[in-house]
């Protein structure tokens, strides 16, 4: 309870001791509850990142820290053709985000506004694939698109007598696979965001003379934005790390960044170069994440306060 106090008493003896304040802070229940996850975060996330950072500065094909540091790995990334992998990964990830948003928005709108009591079952049906390993689902696409005997080709041949080629091994198919795998990550946060838009605010805007497009731009989009942002960010970041889609649906034609990294760590046995490539991906996604995170009010988004 706050109040605008009248006469306040002279302040208590001030504790100038910063350490004492810090000690008190350490003992508050919030920090105590946070500490297990924080410790885990340090060991499981910060530690590994520091190691990757360290490895990216050691000479090629070494497997430990021996005191000599170099930036040649970073020079390699630029001088050799790794930027092509980067371009593929970022291009595919960006395209995935755009496609997912366009596809997911109407469904989210339906879940948040139209389906009513059917929203929960529809949601459940849409969640199920998320819990089936993406490898299994991509294998399913592989079966659908398989040359000659695939479900798609087989059906067209059986029904119309048409011989179609295969759609496998093209950038479009990889994109389709990525959209397929990451759609739920756009869909659910967007639905959450849209369900935050109060119906009466939309009604009020309409009553004040706004048309459908103006309502969308002036009311719906700004309020739903946090959810849309989280969904897009999640999709983008996961898509940067995508590896199975290109491998299973794209064959050897397109080498994405995650695959380059895996390659350096396995066949090429060049950990430092692999680490440097990873650092590139980490820094770029990190900047994006921080930019978006700064705009979010998680209490409002999750707690609906």
């Amino acid at each position, binding site marked *: *309870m*706050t*109040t*605008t*106090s*009248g*006469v*306040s*008493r002279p*302040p*208590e003896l001030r504790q100038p001791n910063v350490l004492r304040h810090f000690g008190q802070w350490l003992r508050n229940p919030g920090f105590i509850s946070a500490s297990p996850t924080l410790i885990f975060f340090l060991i499981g996330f910060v530690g590994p990142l520091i190691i990757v950072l360290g490895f990216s500065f050691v000479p090629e094909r070494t497997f430990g820290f021996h005191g000599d540091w170099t930036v040649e790995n970073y020079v390699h990334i630029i001088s050799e053709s790794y930027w092509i992998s980067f371009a593929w990964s970022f291009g595919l990830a960006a395209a995935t985000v755009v496609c997912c948003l366009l596809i997911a928005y109407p469904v989210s709108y339906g879940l948040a506004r139209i389906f009513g009591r059917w929203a929960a079952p529809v949601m459940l049906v849409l969640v199920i694939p998320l819990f089936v390993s993406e490898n299994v689902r991509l294998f399913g696409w592989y079966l659908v698109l398989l040359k000659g005997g695939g479900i798609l080709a087989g059906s067209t041949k059986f029904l119309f007598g048409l011989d179609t080629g295969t759609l496998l091994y093209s950038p479009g198919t990889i994109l389709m696979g990525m959209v397929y795998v990451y759609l739920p990550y756009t869909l659910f946060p967007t639905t959450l965001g849209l369900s935050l838009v109060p119906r009466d605010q939309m009604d009020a805007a309409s009553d004040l003379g706004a048309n459908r497009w103006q309502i969308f731009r002036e009311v719906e989009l700004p309020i739903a934005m946090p959810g849309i942002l989280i969904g897009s960010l999640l999709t983008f970041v996961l898509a940067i790390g995508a590896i199975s889609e290109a491998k299973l649906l794209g064959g050897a034609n397109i080498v994405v960044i995650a695959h380059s990294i895996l390659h350096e760590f396995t066949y090429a046995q060049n950990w430092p170069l692999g680490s440097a490539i990873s650092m590139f991906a980490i820094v770029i996604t990190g900047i994006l994440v921080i930019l978006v995170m700064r705009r979010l009010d998680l209490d409002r988004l999750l707690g609906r306060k």
Partner: protein
Amino acid sequence: MAEGTPILRIEHVTKQFGKLAAVNDVSLDIVDGEFFTIVGPSGSGKTTLLRMLAGLDKPTTGDVLLRGNRVNDVPANKRPTCMVFQSLALFNHRTVGQNIEFSLKMRGVSRSERRERCKELMKVVRLPEDYYAKGVTKCSGGERQRVALARALASDPDIMFFDEPLSAIDYQLRKHLEVELKDLHRETGKTFIYITHSLEEAMVMSDRIGIMQAGNLIQIGTPDEIYTQPLNKFVSEFMGEVNTLPVVIGADGKFDCAELSAQFIGPAQSNRATSGYLVIRPESMRFLNEPSQADNHVSGSLFNEYAMGSRVQYHVRAGNQMLVVEKLREQAFQGNLNDDVLIGWDVKDSVLVND
């Protein structure tokens, strides 16, 4: 209320949040068995004070004494007091019976004994017996109030605290529950300490009322004292719609009101104030045919009238002040809007308060 031994004594209690004194040097004695209400607007520190009495917060300085023993360091679960929360804080995952029996279970009372006591309590708060196994989320607002009340009563506390439990309830039910609560106070004979932001609610139920403003307890008195002798403008306006006229008292003892460019006769002053506010309740204002019919008079024009059931209220514009006159419906004033009217009041119906 007859004077008895104080069951609860509050001595110079202050609660500091950073530099802010949410409760500032409050002293108060609560008599055993009384219904004491603390009234104040939100942010006045009343909830903070109550939480310190219940043991949920500790005073920064000052002492809380329960039957003469200092209880500052006794936590809430060890005090013989119980609180009904603003949100009611019912355990939503439990049934009505489990909620009411909670404190008994914590004290290790046997199942059958608990159940018996619970049925008793449900009768006291007028809950149907078959509600015992009902989930609390299935209860209506009024029923939830009764469950919270029974739950707090279960451990037979010496003092019951109420943190605005009726604030979220619609008017009609609130009126009904206020009466029930006062009856319950009479039946149980316990000490009730109640906080609310509604002086009207406090008037209905309380033996004594304390008024808080910005962390300070500024006036304590019976409902009648508060009503007839408000300490200052804040208290008088807190009671509802009143006419407050800023006045300066001249050397001749006359009250000059610059805003109405008029002079009034005011109540006799013992403390020789030189300025203040003249407070006149709407029901003490009358329409006059000629100035001599009352001690004081003001002319203005009838701005609007409002039917309020058994009463009718009139707003009269005089100078740049809007004065309020209230009449019983049977004695309604016969006039048209914008008519020039003369209104007035007697000296005995006015009070001079300071700012």
